[in-house]
């Protein structure tokens, strides 16, 4: 019988994964701006500040949010009002609910309970994500149609055609993964990736399914409407595509939906092909067994890193001061950040010193340390893939529409069939 504790655990897990996805949003937008600037050799956003604190352009997000909230939400007279208002909500909610099946750590055994670190452990987990993302098309289609504007409609049509086309190689690339790991349950797939291949390589999906991984990643880029597949938007051809009539927070919902889709795609890529929450070479039992060493390393390296960063900040502040500076509060930013990091690093080193005299961690402590390590591994891999999405966007040119369709139907779908066939053959030969 489910008690209130079970409901509280499920609620907490849902809050955690949504918090994770939504916290990555401003980080991704910051990545996008600063990353684009880095790749194009510019400075990027460096003006918005709160009392001189700019955090390398991170504060710009707050300025953005304030701007979007204050803007008038225009409803043009020629649109279909009901659908026009529903569309952005659909585009955002569906994609958020797909996070329900993403696992972010191994099952936690604590206080006599088994808590699986996944909101819903569905038997056909990954297919649930596919189902939800296929519903996600409706937000875009509805926006394009209800805007009653030919550019918006064309953007919606393009997006629909693209998503349907690339859903097929996306699904077919998964079949190889199912065959290798013998399950469609995401947690099982991640557990299968904890073993070693030939004794030295982690058995990640990337190494056992190289072609499948490539196909899946390309299809995932197309599904998220990112460059080089961002045909639904095209400034030179169809203005802004499906969201051309939207403004204010309704536009922001589409914008946020796009970034949440990137987080979801990264989480899927990591879960299927890069070991999910697995720390390479350290399966859960080993993590729990060596938890006290791990804790010392985490605290020691973290503290030293924070202190080094503080030194860098103070050095930068001094250079700014010597060079004349801006002449306002921004000159003090380096000092504030430096002092904050000295405090953080000092606290971490203090706890590091405390752990040195500690004999052994209690069981729940060891398991919590392992949990934190696994969550960090998952988050680090996901953030890396988010960065790859931005990296690709600013490095590659776009496809033309016919090239997009040719790649999808005539190259990726046959290749994914070849992948399934070869995988089956390999499994047959290996088991012989």
């Amino acid at each position, binding site marked *: 019988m489910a008690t209130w504790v079970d409901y509280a655990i499920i609620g907490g897990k849902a809050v955690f994964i949504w918090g994770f996805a939504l916290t990555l949003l401003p980080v991704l937008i910051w990545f996008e701006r600063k990353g684009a600037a880095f790749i194009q050799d510019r400075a990027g956003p460096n003006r918005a500040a709160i009392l001189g604190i700019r955090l390398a352009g991170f504060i710009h997000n707050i300025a953005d949010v304030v701007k979007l909230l204050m803007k008038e939400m225009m409803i043009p007279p020629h649109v279909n009002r009901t*659908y026009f208002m529903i569309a952005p909500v659909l585009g955002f909610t569906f994609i958020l609910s797909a996070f329900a099946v993403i696992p972010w750590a191994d099952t936690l055994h604590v206080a006599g309970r088994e808590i699986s670190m996944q909101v819903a452990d*569905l*038997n*056909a987990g990954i*297919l*649930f994500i*596919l*189902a*939800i993302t*296929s*519903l996600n*098309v*409706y937000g875009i*289609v*509805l926006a*394009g*149609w209800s805007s009653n504007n030919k550019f918006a*409609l064309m953007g*919606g*049509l393009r997006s*629909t*055609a693209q*998503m*349907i086309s690339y*859903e097929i190689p996306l699904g077919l690339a998964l079949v190889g993964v199912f065959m290798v790991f013998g399950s*469609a349950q995401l947690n099982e797939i991640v557990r299968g990736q904890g073993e070693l291949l030939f004794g030295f390589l982690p058995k990640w999906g990337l190494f056992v399914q190289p072609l499948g991984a490539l196909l899946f990643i390309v299809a995932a880029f197309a599904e998220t409407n990112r460059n080089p597949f961002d045909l639904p938007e095209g400034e030179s051809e169809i203005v802004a595509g499906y969201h051309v009539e939207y403004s204010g927070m309704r536009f922001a919902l589409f914008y946020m939906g796009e970034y949440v889709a990137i987080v979801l795609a990264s989480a899927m890529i990591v879960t299927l092909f890069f070991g999910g929450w697995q720390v390479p070479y350290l399966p859960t039992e080993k993590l729990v067994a060596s938890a006290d060493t791990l804790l010392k390393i985490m605290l020691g390296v973290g503290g030293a890193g924070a202190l080094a960063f503080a030194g860098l900040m103070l050095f930068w502040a001094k250079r700014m001061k010597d060079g004349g500076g801006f002449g306002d509060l921004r000159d003090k930013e380096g000092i504030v950040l430096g002092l904050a990091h000295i405090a953080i690093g000092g606290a971490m080193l203090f706890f590091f010193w405390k752990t040195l005299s500690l004999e052994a961690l209690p069981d729940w402590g060891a398991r919590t340390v392992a949990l934190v390590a696994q969550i960090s591994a998952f988050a680090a891999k996901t953030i890396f893939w988010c960065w790859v999405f931005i990296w690709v966007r600013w490095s590659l040119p776009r496809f033309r529409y016919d090239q997009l369709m040719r790649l999808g139907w005539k190259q990726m779908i046959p290749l994914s069939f070849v992948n399934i066939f070869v995988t089956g053959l390999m499994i047959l030969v290996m088991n012989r």
Partner: protein
Amino acid sequence: MQVALFYILATLSVAGGLLMVGQKNPLAGAFSLILSLCSLAGLVAMLHAEFVFILQVLVYAGAIMVLIIFTIMLLNLKKEELQEAPVGWMRLLLTATLCALGAFGAIQVFGEVDPGQVELATGFGNIESVGRSMLSDFVYPFEVISLILLVAVVGVVLLAKKVI
């Protein structure tokens, strides 16, 4: 909780079906059908048939309905083209009689099944059992259906491309 959820989903699916038939705007009709299909999927999920639920959403609500909406949007019918045909009272009477007969038959057939007595097999509706029954007990119908679909695809290509 379960009963309340069942009645909510059942009402939504029936309402979606009625709206689909009753609405003049084809796109609004299509979205009502999606509502109906999604609530049906919810009913299936209440039986713990996860895989069937996912297939219902993925295939019907996700893929087929997207194609239908795609077609509606491509045709982009004007209001004037959507005038309804006049309905005579004879036709109305005929429809009503057929509906009543159908409802009577359904009650006769399904009224005897006691929902409380049905025991679900272990793994009912999950990916293993669906795959197993599809590729063992029902492999012949499965292959025949895929052949029919292949014929349909070839036919469409033939119709679309006059010169091959």
